[in-house]
Structure formats: structure tokens, C-alpha cells
């Protein structure tokens, strides 16, 4: 199969954490006045509790009180419905917003408020920890040039034959229009050097042996307890009931080749810079 894919959209907070603790990057703190709900009582205390010690204290409190649902790595849990807290937060866009959610909970959901006797500074430390899971992309200094990276993407690397960016490109790999929002430059580089490191289930492949002896292979568009749906290299869709097939084999490997040999270090750097620049345009306030 000539199709290609990149690794899963992992949201490793590792780089962000290092960044905050080493002071290499600036903490990304939105103005507290933004989107304050009328019922909120929080004031902007975030700037008072964002030292490395506060973040560590917040991390400790998080592991104890929050990790059961949100995960020890704050990346959420589909089974409990607890969201990933390492990317863009849907319910809060400011420190005060995060504070209020922790303080008051979200009515009608499993998100309960913290106990009333937990002091405000502890909640602010938690806010600081959650903020430490993100960083300002503008502060990241990259070796490559984003403008030059568009060349290997469309040309030598043939990335666009499989990947879509802003509506242009193939459908045999993830749409990369906003890949910079969810992946660190380190993640992006690793994806190109070692595509098999982490592949999202949607981009696994399945080989199905039918009762007629025919073997078909393609992307795992969907697999559930009873059925399979695959898309072959020619973009044909095939559906199967598991009970009607002879057998099937699943591969969790990527279909994308590694680019460590095909591209020079400089080209890879440029490509990383280009991909990292792919994010949603910030709408004017």
C-alpha cells in the first residue's frame, strides 16, 4: 500500500511542563476578565500562585483529587467522560473560569465542586498546574523555517498526497490543518522519524479474509464488537459482519514511511516548523 499516515494526535504535556519549570517559555495566561460568568466570585489570583512550587503543589493535589476521572496525566478518560485538560479547555478560557469550575463544579455532571473548606490558594495552585499543561506557541523557538516547510510538504515529501491541509490534499492520513494545536514540535518530529510510535486507532489497518477466500486490506474506519468497516488504498469502503468472515488481522503500525532518510535534517526542521504553524486562526477580539 502506498498510503501514508502520521502518528496519533497525542497531547503530551511533557514539553510544556519542562518549559514552565525551566523558565524557557512564558506561561500562557489569558486575562482574567475574559468571559467571567456573572455568577463567578473568583478574582484573578493566578498570577499570585504560579511559581514552580505552586505548580508542583497543584500537581500533587490534582493527582489526589482529580486523577481518578481526569487521569494521572490529566489527559481525560473516555469511560468516565472526563475531558482532557492538557489542550484547549472548553468550559473555561481564563484562570478565573478554571477556578470557578473547580470551586463550584459543573451542575448535572460528574464534575463535583471541591470541598468548601479547601482554601482558595489550593484551588489557585490547581489552576496553575492546569495552566502548566499548556504553553504559548509564540514563545517556542524553532530551528526550521515554517515558510520553507511548505515545500517538502507539497513536494519532495509528498505529504499532501495523503494529508489534507485547509481542504487541499489526500484522505489517507489525518487532516493536519490544526496539527500544531495538539502536538509539540518534539511530537511532530517523532511522528516523522518513527511513525509507528503511536498510531491512533482510526489509522490502524485491518486485513479481512472473507469466506470466499478473498483477502481485503484497508484503514480501520470502524471496528466494533460485531462489525468492521475498512477503506482500501483506492478509497473503496467495505463493510463486514464479523460473524460472516473467515478471520481478520489488525495492524497497529502506521502506513506512513519514516522520513529520517528521505529528508535532510534541515528539511525536517522546516517541516516541523511548518506543521507547528498549522493552527486555527485567532479571531480578532
Amino acid at each position, binding site marked *: 500500500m502506498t498510503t501514508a499516515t502520521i502518528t496519533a494526535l497525542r497531547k503530551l504535556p511533557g514539553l510544556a511542563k519542562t518549559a514552565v519549570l525551566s523558565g524557557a517559555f512564558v506561561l500562557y495566561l489569558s486575562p482574567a476578565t475574559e468571559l467571567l460568568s456573572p455568577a463567578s466570585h473568583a478574582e484573578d489570583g493566578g498570577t499570585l500562585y504560579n511559581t514552580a512550587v505552586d505548580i508542583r503543589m497543584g500537581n500533587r493535589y490534582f493527582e489526589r483529587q482529580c486523577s481518578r476521572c481526569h487521569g494521572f*496525566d490529566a489527559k481525560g478518560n473516555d*469511560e468516565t467522560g472526563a475531558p482532557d485538560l492538557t489542550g484547549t479547555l472548553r468550559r473555561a478560557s481564563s484562570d478565573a473560569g478554571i477556578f470557578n469550575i473547580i470551586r463550584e463544579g459543573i451542575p448535572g455532571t460528574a464534575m463535583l465542586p471541591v470541598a468548601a473548606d479547601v482554601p482558595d490558594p489550593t484551588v489557585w495552585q490547581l489552576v496553575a498546574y492546569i495552566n502548566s499543561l499548556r504553553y504559548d506557541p509564540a514563545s517556542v523557538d524553532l530551528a526550521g523555517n515554517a515558510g520553507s516547510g511548505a515545500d517538502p510538504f507539497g513536494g519532495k515529501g509528498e505529504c499532501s498526497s495523503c494529508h489534507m491541509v485547509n481542504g487541499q490534499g489526500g484522505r489517507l492520513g489525518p487532516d493536519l490543518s490544526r496539527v500544531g494545536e495538539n502536538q509539540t514540535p518534539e511530537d511532530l518530529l517523532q511522528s516523522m522519524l518513527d511513525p509507528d510510535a503511536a498510531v491512533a486507532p482510526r489509522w490502524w489497518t485491518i486485513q479481512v479474509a472473507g469466506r470466499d477466500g478473498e483477502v481485503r486490506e484497508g484503514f480501520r474506519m470502524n471496528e466494533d464488537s460485531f462489525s468492521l468497516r475498512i477503506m482500501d488504498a483506492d478509497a473503496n469502503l467495505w463493510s463486514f459482519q464479523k460473524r460472516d468472515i473467515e478471520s481478520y488481522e489488525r495492524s497497529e503500525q502506521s502506513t506512513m514511511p519514516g522520513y529520517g532518510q528521505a529528508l535532510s535534517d534541515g528539511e525536517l526542521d522546516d517541516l516541523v516548523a511548518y506543521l507547528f504553524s498549522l493552527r486555527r486562526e485567532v479571531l480578532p477580539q
Partner: protein
Amino acid sequence: MKKITNPFPPALAAAFLGVSFLVSAPLQAQEDPFSTVITPAFSPITWERLVNADDEPENWLMYSGTLDSQRYSLLDQINVDNVDQLEMKWAYQIPVIDRAETVPLVVDGIMFITEAPSNVVAVDALTGRQYWRYDHDMPDDLRICCGRNNRGVAILGETLFMSTLDAHLVAIDARTGNLLWDKEVAPHDSGYSKTAAPLIVKDKVVTGIAGGEFGIRGFIDAYDPETGELEWRTYVIPGPGEFGNDTWSGDSWKTGGAATWITGSYDEELNQIYWGTGNPGPDWNGDVRLGDNLYSDSVVALDGDTGEIEWHFQFTPHDVHDYDSIQIPILADIEFEGRERKVMMWANRNGFYYTLDRTDGEFLIGKPYAAQTWAQGLDPVTGRPIRVPGMAPTYEGIMVSPPIVGATNWYSPGYSQDTGLFYVTSFDGEQEFFKRDEDYEEGERFTGGGGRYTQPMDAYHSSIRAINPGTAEIEWEFPIMPRSSAGITTTAGGIVFTGSADGYFFALDAQSGEELWNISLGRRVHAAPMTFAVDGHQYVTIASGNVVYTFGLRN
């Protein structure tokens, strides 16, 4: 107490009766929560009827169907030959958006469904239409580990008994939904909560407690059904001077967890109540509670009258992986090594299946039934696990199987009297376990660590497994995906009914494991199916997402 039982909302009534009524009607509704709606008559549920529940398979009279918790129904109208003709008869949409873990009861055509957080509704089992509802008034400072769940009610006479998330036990008139009494079992703001259906034993309501992640001290209680008075309390962590207290270092027994958060079983002949117990606390840091930590991760057998512990069997001594023994004990009399034995079948969260003699807790046989890396095996005489060294959680994290959610968990297993097989929803997963140092603070989580998956859930193997209780060998398995938290019900029609996390409700051949029928209900099945009959027609009911579905054969 807050109740909304009027099926004719005041505003609507006002629209019919004229504007002048609008002023007084809402006031009246607020002042007087008394329900005037009455269900059709049903015959009161006596203890004798509960003991002989399998004599009336048209009714589903308790959480696990019968006191032996086999979840085996004698109904066979729906069977291996016609189950593929099932069609949906009705759906009841739960108004609270959460997840339904309820197993409804059916008494003479009336169905009682519990809802998150702790409500109950009575509906017509033929149509799903509501007779009445009870909404429990809930404080806003709950301490719950894992969601707003309620799993069902118990019935005795004409009274329903329900656990509530604020750690109360309530008695509700099954005819009207009116509250009869409301008893605080334990203080909710200290971390206690209640989610499981109670178990009726003779003239008492027996019930456990949740809160194992908050440093509680677990117990099993019995209440007077008339008055709500506590008849006895048996702590499953022994106090000073009692047998087993020395299996806890220092004062750790006071905050040792061992929550009793699922329903138990009862053997009338032996007059023993069997109940599983949860993890010791803090879950993942055993340094502060050295010793075996009795009776955490155990099954305890209690005297049916006094609640005294007659025997115990600890599946996981000094657990550091959160392997609660919160599984429902399945009781049956089977031939074991050529001899008729009264056994208890148990697939544990720790990855091992056990057959015990329930008269005295003797270990008969046990083997792994799912992926596990923490034990080399079980001692062939005592059944005690032989640990793999170095598998306790660390500060840096260590990969162990089963993961925290376990090889199975609270969801009901099943047993078929026809095949003699035991059926369990199982998971072959793994997780990185972390240890942390924490001091106990009342009402705060007290877990000492946590866990992390390193792969997407689809990468792990899940299945329904059929185990031979005589050999502890797996007879067949049916793969599903991803990890399921659905319970299992078997029938004399030769069927195993269960559900999956990807929203299927399905039927397997109990003998062969072959797929017979499935339907996608669109949302995770978090509950066990139950089956009943009205007017000679058999139905099967399952909750998926926020909906309770009832299926029957095409007319």
C-alpha cells in the same frame, strides 16, 4: 425531601382549568409533595416469595433475580431458535443525563427503575409509561469517587428500599412513590455514599456502603423494614481486640476502606449472607497499612440473623492495586471432583477465578481467567496468591495487569443451570500504577496514587468468557470491544444476554458462545439485563446510555 409525583403539572392543569387556578396550584404542589397516583394492585412480596423467586419467573424480584444471584431465568419463550426475532417494544428515556446502571425490578407488570443520582420511577412494564416517580433530595456536597450511579431497589411487602448517593437508605411506598422513611446510614461529608441495591434477608434490609477512596471503614448493615431502625452493623474491618485487627499496622484500620458497595447473596439452608468487600485504603500505597488488611478484598459469610462473621476468604491480601472483591457471589450446588458441593463461584477483579465451598469458605480451585502479571499463581491448598515480587506501584510508575478497573468489576456475572457454566465480562488490560504519599483528611480522597493507560482502549482485548466451575477452565470466549461494564443474564431458553461498551445489546448461545442476535443501542451498556413476562409474553430489558429498552418477540 423533594418529590415530583404529580403527572399533571400545575401549569398544564391551569391551562385547562382557567387562569384563576394558576395562583394556588403551584403553591399547593410545593407545600404538599404527597402523591395521589396509585399503581394497579400487585400482590405484596413476602419473604417466602423472595426465597422461591424462581417459582415466579414472570417477576424479577431482586437485583440479581434470585437470592443465589445466578441471574438465571426459567423463562424460555425467547430461546436460541427465535431470539433473532426480538424487536424493541418500548424505551423509557431517563430525564437525568448521566449513565444508567439500573437493573429494574418487575412485580406483576409494574417495573421499578432507578435513575441517577438517586431517583426511582414506577412504569407500566408493557408500555414504559410512568405511574409515579420519587426524586431524592440531594445535598450539594457529595463525596463520590466514580459518577452518580444507582443500581436498583429491593422490595418487601409493598415497600421499595433504595440506597442514595448521600449515604441514606430510604423506604418508598411501591404503590405511590411516597417516602415512608429516610435513614442516614453514614455521614456523606466524611466520604460515605451508597449506590447498590439492598438485599432483603427475612425481615431485614441488608445493605452495604461505598466510599473506599475516602478512607472510610466499611460495614454491612441490617435495618428494620418498618421503622428504618438499625438492627445490626458488622464492620468488615475488625476493631481493636477483634480477630484480624492486627492485620493493620498502627491505626490504619480506622481509615482502611473495604467498602461493601455491591449487593450480596443469601443461602436460606445455611442461613448465611455472602458479601464482597472492596479495596483497602489508601488504594495504591500499602506502606501505611502493613499486614493482610482483613477483611478487605474478601468475601465474608455472615449469620443471617445476627450479622456475625462466620467465615471469610481473602482473595487479595494486602492489595496495592485496587482489586476490590466487589463481585456478586453466585451460589449453586454442583458436582465437584465427583462430589456434590455447595459452592460459590467468583471471578475476581484481580484476574483469578475461584470456586469456594460456601459452607465454610474452603478453597476448591482457582486459576487466572484474564491477563494478570502480579501473581505467579494461587496456593493450591489455601488459594492465597503467590505474588510476583516488585509489582507494587512505584513513584515512577510500573506496568501491571489487570489495570485498576480490573479483569472484571462490579458488573454482574451469570450462571446457567442448563450448561453448568459461569459467565463473566472480562478485560485483558494493563496500566501504569503510581504510588503517592498522602495523609488522611476526613472527606478528602485517600488513594495514595493512581494509574495511567499507555495505549488507546481499542488496543486491549475484552470478552465474555464462559468458565467451568469444576475445572476453572475457560470453555469459550466471545470477543467484544472495547472494555465492557455490562452484566450478564442467562435463561432457560439457552441464552446469555449481555451488552457492550460500544452500545450493543446481544444474545449468545449459552452452550457454544455463538452469536445469536445483536442490536446497536447507540450508547454504552453499563447495566445488567433482566427478563420478565406479562400476560404470558416474555420480555427482556436493558439500560444503555440514559435509556431503558424493553424487547419482545414480534407478534
